[in-house]
């Protein structure tokens, strides 16, 4: 949807405020995904969807209605439903008025070729990857996904444009492409993935080569005992762990409610001196949205600087409580979650993952992790599995495959024990390096 089209929808949505406040958020676009397994395309889908969410506030009472009927009647119905809900809602004492018009940084996150990429082009890229896997005698499974707009995984739609009755208007268009491939041979597997706002950056053949190499290397794994090991975590593994930490710890509400490791520790050392973690949608690898769900401009935030806790990310409500300005990380108001850091950047080094491996006398190389979940929120202890390539490192070289482990590891402690970092890449929505960790707890084994 163009800026003018979005503006036309939102102007109607925030019209006839007559003493009330109205905020309207429009999200959506197109999302297309080609899925393959066993060396053939097994699913292939396309979705076109726009969602309008209208919030009406009557003083400190507020209600919301959301729908995808963008006709004049549909918009009027949402407005009436939101208004009726606001009338019935109890007052929210710390509900803030909608923000005034804002100024936003421009983010170039759109690629016309990606926006128009069709199923034939995706099939050709998949065919290249499948051919490589077939030639190697393994099975390919994966996805090639492209989209224009803000439809995310699990159908979640984030803001494309926002307007309110105070005259605010914000619009951000973006495209995305991602390719992920698993090469499978029985219980041996290898994985590779890439993502960008440009489909032209995706090289399915190169990713297939990488996945095949990992799969072939994963055959006949050795059994190592559970215990603490020096590990090299590839960027995909780091991204998963850092993102989980972010969900439960890096927003100001978690800090204010005392359920974050940052609670009471701002200004103190919480991680190793070589760890700097930011949230920055303007990073060239992110090219994210320059505003949050209330239309507040998103600012880059340094969360951890050389191991010192600097600041969580804020929305307007939590910022008001702490007497600071919002950093523009808010979700739709009201919500029980508080602000979230969603454009994470963990600063890295100069070398490659191979350089990290070279410094390990005896340890493990972790391609990625799977099914992570929180065991202990205050220490950010996560459990999860290694997956798609766990390798022995001996004498600075990869010497063979190892059976997968379950880990139970405090991520805060892990970030005290970073020995070295590779250069950063964007993977799984996070910009981060590979890490060499002195001691990482592999707690139990599995059958493969």
């Amino acid at each position, binding site marked *: 949807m163009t800026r003018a089209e979005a503006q036309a929808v939102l102007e109607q949505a925030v019209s006839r405020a007559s003493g009330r406040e109205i905020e309207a958020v429009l999200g959506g676009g197109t999302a297309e995904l080609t899925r393959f397994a066993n060396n053939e395309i097994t699913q292939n*889908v396309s979705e076109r*969807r726009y969602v309008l969410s209208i919030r009406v506030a009557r003083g400190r009472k507020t209600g919301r209605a959301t729908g995808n009927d963008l006709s004049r009647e549909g918009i009027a119905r949402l407005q009436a439903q939101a208004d009726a809900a606001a009338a019935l809602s109890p007052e929210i004492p710390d509900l803030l008025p909608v923000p005034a018009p804002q100024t936003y940084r421009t983010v170039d996150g759109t690629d016309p070729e990606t926006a128009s990429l069709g199923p034939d082009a995706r099939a050709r890229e998949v065919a290249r990857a499948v051919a490589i896997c077939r030639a190697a005698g393994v099975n390919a499974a994966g996805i090639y996904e492209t989209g224009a707009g803000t439809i995310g995984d699990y159908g979640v739609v984030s803001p494309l444009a926002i307007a309110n009755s105070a005259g605010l208007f914000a619009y951000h268009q973006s495209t995305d492409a991602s390719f992920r491939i698993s090469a499978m041979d029985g219980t041996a597997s290898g994985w590779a993935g890439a993502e960008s706002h440009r489909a032209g950056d995706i090289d399915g053949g190169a990713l297939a080569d990488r996945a095949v190499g990992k799969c072939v290397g994963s055959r006949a794994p050795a059994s190592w005992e559970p215990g603490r090991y020096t590990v090299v975590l590839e960027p995909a593994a780091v991204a998963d762990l850092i993102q989980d930490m972010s969900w439960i710890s890096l927003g100001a509400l978690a800090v204010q409610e005392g359920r974050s490791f940052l609670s009471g520790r701002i200004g103190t050392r919480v991680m190793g001196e070589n760890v700097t973690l930011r949230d920055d949608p303007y990073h060239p690898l992110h090219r994210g949205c320059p505003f949050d769900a209330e239309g507040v401009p998103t600012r880059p935030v340094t969360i951890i600087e050389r191991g010192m806790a600097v600041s969580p990310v804020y929305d307007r409500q939590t910022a008001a409580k702490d007497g600071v300005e919002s950093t523009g990380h808010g979700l739709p108001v*009201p919500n029980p979650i508080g602000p979230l850091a969603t454009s994470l950047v963990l600063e890295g080094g100069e070398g490659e993952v191979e350089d990290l491996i070279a410094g390990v006398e005896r340890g493990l190389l972790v391609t990625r992790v799977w099914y992570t979940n929180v065991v202990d929120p205050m220490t950010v202890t996560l459990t999860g599995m290694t997956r798609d390539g766990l390798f022995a490192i001996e004498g600075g070289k990869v010497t063979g495959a190892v059976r997968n482990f379950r880990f139970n590891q405090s991520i805060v402690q892990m970030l005290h024990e970073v020995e070295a970092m590779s250069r950063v890449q964007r993977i799984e929505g996070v910009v981060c390096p590979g890490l060499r960790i002195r001691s990482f707890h592999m707690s139990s084994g599995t059958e493969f």
Partner: protein
Amino acid sequence: MSDLARLALDEATRRGAGYADARLLDQNREDLLVKNGQVASLEQTESRGLGVRVLVNGAWGYAATDELTKDGAAACAARAVAIGRASASVLAKPVRLAPEPPQTAVWSSPCAVDPFTVPLERKLDLLLAVDAGLRGVRGVTIAESGLTFVRKRQRFLSSEGSDIDQTILRSGGGYSATAVAGNEVQRRSFPQAEGYHQTRGWEFIESVPWVAEAPRIAEEAVALLRADQCPHGEFDVILEGSQLALQIHESVGHPTELDRVLGMEANYAGTSFLTLDKKGTLRFGSPKVNLVADATLPDGLATFAFDDEGVAAQRWHIVRDGMFEGYLTSRELAHTVGDNRSRGCVRADGWNHIPMIRMVNLSLMPGAGSLDDLLGDTDHGIYMETNRSWSIDQLRYNFQFKTEIAWEVKRGKRIRMLKNPTYQGITPQFWNSCDFVCGTEAWRPWSVVNCGKGQPGQVAEMTHGAAPARFRAVKVGAGYEDD
């Protein structure tokens, strides 16, 4: 509006689809959430759209749109066919659908009182009363309570002649108390973690003692701050029903999805240790273990008349007397296990997503005896209640769960409360260690409403009936051991 579905089918067939189906959905949802005495969400959501699925030269294409006009429906069908044609360019074997007679039906899940007609004030009054009950206990830091109502009306048409109008309504809710002190964050939930739901109306909400249980839940959350740490080692473990429900979901339900078994989820959720050679040969659990898939279960969250391929709801054993018997199947994959008919397990979470194999209701059949009988039969063990976190490997062998609360049991009695209980195991070993399943009086239809699967991800809901059960010599304490 069903004319649009018909138009889409005709357009898809005209453009070369060998098979086509169209689903036209109208979905309404209401979410209410109260946190610490304030409304944290009050939202009504509606979503309408059309999804068209086609087979072109034996390959799948799917397109979905919310442009509900003749042009929009025709364009959607054309896009589905173009996608199917592209899929056929990377195809090993054409899809072969198991035969299914065309169905014409109108069906609705039972509902005595439509929750969408119940005034918002009444719903908020209930949540605010729960909130007061939770925050009336000193030491509670966060009180959260919520209600959710969902109605999905779907018209399913297929090029084989099916025409099914199906409405499924569900109601549910739940609450939690969180207590925070120092480095401890403890939580208790009621009736279970992530909410308790059924395909019933407001009468279901009125059948649950929401307000009466709030003080106990809050007191337990606060008491956990001072409780002893759950020990580390090997113990007999007794799982309360809602925790066992999630154990069933993760270690029985997902590994029996036939698309997973055949590698079609390999890049995301993984595959399964229940390979085709295990059917009829693997001792999955002890003879006490009987697991039944049932899309006809009264009030179940995956209870329907027909699945999203137009296949009638069925009931069958997955595990009988401990032996592994069967899978969750679709029309596309039934033939791979020698079946000439799908088990009817295909669902989508909306018009915008393609239907795929999803768990139906899957329950552990009751044994005999009450929870007191089970505790009384236990010399030394740990009784764990209410899920807090979960994780399982990509073949569904190694799992680890944490529950909100536990009690040490000695000589048949609970002797002390324990905090941060975790247990870990390997699926077939774990189910083979089951030696006691409580009876009908302790059996409840527990809910899962956040089951993620697929690329793009979809969220499904289902019911897992379970009564408390005992498992021998289980590893306890992962994540908190001194090592």
